[in-house]
């Protein structure tokens, strides 16, 4: 029953959405509209649940003095502080915007930027022309990297066109193949989920 009822609801809802896409049946079309609105509402509630869950998990870490419980304390303290500022003064208040623009954005950007260093180091260590395929990949990478920056354009005027040709022709062809395979796989998985054959998304039930 714990899996049968959600499966039945899922199949029912999915059928309405599918019929709505292909046919003009006013009752079904209106029901589909309502369902998509519910998704927005449920997603908003899920965000709140996520915040509560985060609080519960990290409070437990602190209570049981688990490894790195200090980080949990910082997380909860900052989360509550920002939430209180946002609720008390609105998220458009100067204080909230200052926190966001001067703490959150620089930290997020810095973390993202560290990827450049990892990629540089990883490329140096792994990009080796050990065989023909690897050599081709290496050369392609170098041409695209140079073709996408002004330096490459200065070195040879044909470089940007060549890099774009690699992206437009070879890359697009490969990406299309991947996309089509993914789409077919997605259809199969969807049919299995709708018909109740696929139940992995319910978890183990523990």
């Amino acid at each position, binding site marked *: 029953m714990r899996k049968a009822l959600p499966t039945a609801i899922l199949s029912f809802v999915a059928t309405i959405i599918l019929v709505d896409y292909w046919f003009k049946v006013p009752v079904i079309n209106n029901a589909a509209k309502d369902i998509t609105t519910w998704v927005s509402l449920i997603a908003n509630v899920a*965000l709140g649940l996520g915040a509560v869950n985060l609080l519960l998990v990290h409070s437990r870490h602190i209570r049981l003095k688990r490894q790195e419980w200090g980080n949990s304390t910082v997380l909860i303290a900052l989360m509550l502080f920002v939430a209180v500022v946002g609720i008390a003064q609105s998220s458009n208040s100067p204080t909230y915007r200052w926190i966001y623009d001067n703490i959150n954005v620089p930290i997020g950007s810095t973390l993202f930027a560290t990827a450049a260093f990892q990629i540089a*180091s990883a490329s*140096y260590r792994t990009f*080796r022309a050990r065989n023909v395929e690897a050599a081709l990949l*290496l050369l392609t990478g170098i041409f695209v990297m140079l073709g*996408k*920056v002004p330096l490459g354009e200065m070195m040879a005027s044909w470089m*940007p066109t060549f890099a774009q040709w690699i992206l437009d022709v070879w890359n697009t062809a490969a990406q299309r193949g991947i996309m089509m395979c993914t789409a077919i796989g997605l259809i199969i998985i969807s049919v299995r989920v709708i018909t109740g054959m696929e139940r992995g998304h319910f978890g183990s039930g523990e």
Partner: protein
Amino acid sequence: MSTYEKLQAIDKRVIYILLALSIAVPLLFPLGLPFSVGAEVKNSYDWIEKNINKDDLVLFSYDISTGAMPELGPITTAVMAHLAKKQVKIIGIATMTDGVMMARQLYAPFAKDLPYGEKFVNLGFLAGGESGLSSFLQNPYNVFKADADGKPIESMPVMKGFKDVKDIKVMISVNCGPVGGCSIEQWVRQGFVTHKKPVWIGLNAVMAPGSMPYYRSGQLTGYIAGIRGAAEYETLVGRAGLGTSAMDAQSIAHALIIIFIVLGNVGMMAIKRSKAKGGAIK
């Protein structure tokens, strides 16, 4: 350790320091390397220039995380400068939570050209991913009754004439991927496939190869990728910004990475040749 072995084992701290310098120095002392405008950016710019007129409704989705801000911020600023010049009406949303604040930050320089409530509104976070987007496009007032600050939107002049997706001239998403928001595929599915509306995107360079087929097939009307795309768009709009200033840094950083890759390969090949000859590695 021989010289060739050393070439293959350069300390990563050396790479990190040189890379940091290769980015920081050109940013502080620009070289002003010239660059051309690619066909994609030119076509994307021309499409807006030809098809978007004063007071047309533009749905602008700020699908930007804080991490993607350095790359997507310049794209957004350049595109908004273009839209401000055209005096369109912008309905701002965000399919990821960060986007609401990003929209505020990125709108601030245009507050004079696009007065809030008249030419611009920030509706805030649109939850629910693709389903949420589908719902919003069919009946926006079911999803949003107020803007991100809680002000009722129905009386705002910018919302006049906006009943549903049919009134939107173009959907623009500056997008950092499906991490918590709508992906390019979802915008294409909902905007272009379902509602037959032009979808125009700005995206991270790392997402460019994966999204290229949508542009090539005509499912995307506009396509601005990465900081290079931002720099090219800034050139067309005539407003040099962060994109343009980052071009020198990107050039030197790419060159440095290529030099390291070549050094590693020279070391590997020399050792291979030496082993094949049966000689000692020097």
